[in-house]
């Protein structure tokens, strides 16, 4: 199962999905969130299996099973 966390005003919104038909709707929502995060923010993959380092996600397909993808919203100058 793949998990994404979108940082937002609720803390974060979690979406779990895999490649099965059962989670097709969740996968669509996750993919839309990824497209949005890639445009205005930064999606980053953390807690990868085998202790691999975090990485910036360039493609939706790079989201790995067992890892956490955190979608960082846009950073604005304060």
């Amino acid at each position, binding site marked *: 199962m793949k998990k994404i966390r979108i940082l937002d005003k609720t*803390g974060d919104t979690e979406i779990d999905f895999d490649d099965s038909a059962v989670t097709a709707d969740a996968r669509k929502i996750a993919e839309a969130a990824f497209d949005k995060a890639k445009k205005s923010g930064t999606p980053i993959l953390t807690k990868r299996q085998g202790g691999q380092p975090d990485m910036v996600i360039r493609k939706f397909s790079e989201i790995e099973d067992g890892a956490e993808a955190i979608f960082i919203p846009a950073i604005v100058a*304060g």
Partner: protein
Amino acid sequence: MVRLSGLDQQMGDDRLSVACYSVIERDSIRILWRSRRYNWPGGGIEVSGVWGIRTGSDPRMLFGYIQELIGGQIHHLERCNVPDIGASLRAMELTFEHAINRRMESLEHAGGYRDNFSDRVRVDALFGWQALAPQVHSPVDQKAVKKARDLLRDQLNDEQRAQFDATEQFQVIGKDRKTYTIKKARSFNVTGPDGVRYCGQTVDTPLEDQMLAQKLLLENDPEKFFKNCNRSGGAAIDSGIINALAAVAGSLF
């Protein structure tokens, strides 16, 4: 030897009170902490800051500017009969902080002030003096804050988590191999190894989410963070002085 003195004074405006404290360092650096409150019928706005200046420099150059900036804005909102002055001022907190920081920087560059101290300014609009209608002041979503805090702690390593639990800040090693300190504050909360402070914020998320975002960006895509940051302060200063001043500042605030 550090000597501390304090005084309260009215600045000629019956809505303004100033508390000034100075620390005289043995090498003649005067560091000034201030907290002043600007009042309006519904509450107040407070400015506090730490600023490094030379002995003999006149801090009123900055005080006068702040009085004009914030006091002037309150007058303007009152004259325009703005129904919710508190909300307007709250929305302007960051704008005030930026303007005051910029004035600090320009005074430093104009000479006569010391510019190798890590200055900071914080502006808080306060609503504690009378009951507010619910639409004026949004309560903090404690559930969201807890969720964000739990996520942040989960993403920290053991050392970072211990730092955060103890001090509400932690250090990260950026992709550039430099060490950054991320503090629990909305503005200018990231400090680089050279003392430069960075202000790159998330919008409409709990503070802990912002800290997590800053951590992950510094570790994985620092250019994206720095591209969208304001900077303040910098240059080297003896760390012993900083520690001594921070200890005194903590006791004042």
